[in-house]
């Protein structure tokens, strides 16, 4: 033991830090990706094959699990609902968020501080904990068990951060742009729409991704608001699906793979924008 410990400092110097870092990073990436790989591989297997050879490569021509999930279950319906809910929410978030952000950033007013504080409070409060009154409010508005119940909830949750992102960016645009247009006789709405907003596409993309991923993945609000199967979104529909096929593991993995595919592929194609968008709230 003594010999080993006295050797240790020398050994530590000898093994370059880079090598150790490599080993840890490769091990970590393996842990991060391997479960996803097993999920995809298992989706090509029958239940018997999964139980007997969990780690073996499948026959990739066996796509009957996928065909069954897409052809015989409600998964395509859930998918369409998720697209409708996420898409409409993002449009509303961007429109309302840009309106408030623009007013705060470009027009001086005594109420600006109040407006910013108002949205700051919205940023801090977890709306999840107000789900009971929200439930009753949506019932009174006749929106319960409809896609609109989710759309208005997500818009309310996403709005504050979008106001801050948009205001923060719009404030940095030089006022010479506005002034030049104003001298040319352009109206305020025209300046906003044709001069300023075309420049604001990057922060809009950030705000869109930052909000789209949590909305696409949300489970809690559909669980509380939606009962009808035909209106369920993908994460909620997935729980119904998993409950129906509990013993057919081939189907379960195919369902998970299909549910995970759109966002994973989109992430791989746009990883820089995804990372930037999703960490935007935590990185100044």
């Amino acid at each position, binding site marked *: 033991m003594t010999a080993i410990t006295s050797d240790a400092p020398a050994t530590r110097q000898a093994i370059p830090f880079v090598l150790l870092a490599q080993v840890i990073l490769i091990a970590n990436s393996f842990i991060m990706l391997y479960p996803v790989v097993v999920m995809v591989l298992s989706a090509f297997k029958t239940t018997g094959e999964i139980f007997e050879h969990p*780690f073996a490569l499948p026959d990739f021509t066996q796509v009957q699990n996928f065909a069954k999930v897409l052809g015989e279950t409600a998964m395509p319906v859930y998918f369409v609902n998720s697209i409708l809910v996420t898409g409409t929410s993002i449009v509303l978030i961007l429109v309302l968020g840009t309106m408030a952000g623009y007013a705060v950033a470009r027009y001086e007013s005594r109420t600006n501080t109040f407006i910013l504080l108002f949205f700051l409070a919205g940023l801090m409060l977890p709306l*999840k904990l107000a789900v009971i009154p929200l439930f009753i409010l949506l019932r009174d508005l006749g929106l319960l068990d409809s896609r609109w119940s989710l759309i208005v909830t997500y818009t309310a949750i996403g709005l504050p951060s979008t106001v801050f992102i948009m205001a923060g960016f719009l404030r940095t645009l030089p006022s010479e742009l506005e002034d030049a247009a104003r001298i040319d006789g352009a109206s305020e709405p025209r300046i906003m729409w044709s001069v300023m907003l075309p420049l604001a596409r990057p922060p809009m993309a950030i705000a869109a991704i930052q909000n789209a991923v949590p909305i696409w993945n949300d489970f809690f609000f559909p669980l509380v608001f939606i009962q009808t199967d035909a209106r369920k979104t993908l994460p909620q529909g997935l729980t119904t699906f998993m409950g129906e096929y509990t013993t057919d593991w081939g189907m379960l993995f195919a369902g998970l793979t299909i549910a995970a595919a759109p966002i994973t592929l989109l992430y791989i194609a746009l990883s820089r924008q995804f990372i930037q968008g999703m960490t935007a709230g935590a990185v100044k």
Partner: protein
Amino acid sequence: MQASRQQPRSLKHQLWVAFLVVPPIVFMSLFVVYPILSAFAYAFYDWQGLARGEFVGLKNFREVLFGATMAPVVWNAFLHNVYALIALMIIQNGGGFFLAWLLYKEPFGFRFHRIAVFVPVVLSTIIVGFLWKLFLNPNFGIINQALYSVGLDSWAKPWLGDSSTALGALILANAWHFVGFPALVYLAGMQRIPPEIIEAARLDGTNEWQLLKNVVWPLVAPSTTILFTLLFIGAFNWFEIPYVMVGLDGSPFGSTDVLGLVFYRTAFGNQSASIQNFGMGSALATLLFLFIVVFASMLTLWLRRREIQF
């Protein structure tokens, strides 16, 4: 402010500004401010299903905190939230910090590793929960299958069915899901440190550990503030992973029960007890809300004081 932004405050101009700010504010008031204020009010009433009964003062709060049926469940769940918070602080945020440091050095393939660590983060918690539930299956899950295949049969366990391992399994599944988030936030924090500072420390002969502990860690304090506050809020709102992996009752024997599950059961009922109690649910939500606001603000203020300007 620049003088050029001063505009004549004509009525037309004021209408235009109102057109911009009023819709978002009305929307927020209706769907955020009003529900949150009502949540406090609801807790002081008796509820019969969806109908509000009479004003009962603090009865619901007493029931939640000290009542014979509710309180033991609530405190048991609270303890599990605390365990999850502490474990995730170490595994998720601590692990993320070390991963960030390795990525910061930009070793061979760091672009790939940076993308890989964030893959689980973009997945839905529901997918992650179901995936790990299948992997942890006692008979056919790959975890036990892997243990059998290397001869460690005695290590194999019904991970989610054993009260001693179930909560730990949920915590690890959560860490797998989210470790990429602190990793990349810390990485961005490290990249903002002026390289001269790290260079100077190196020239002074500090070793890797001292550099990390005495230079990097204090300088990424702003990232720590936000990550720890977010984790604190997340840990006390924990719901999806337990719901999917062990069910609404926090099985086995309440060993994975957390406040999110208790709240949902109380407010919206479950299979075994279909009673809905909006009064008690609102009381629990209000207490949780106050707890989160008070402690998250204290945590933020305390962490802010460690931050150094550079």
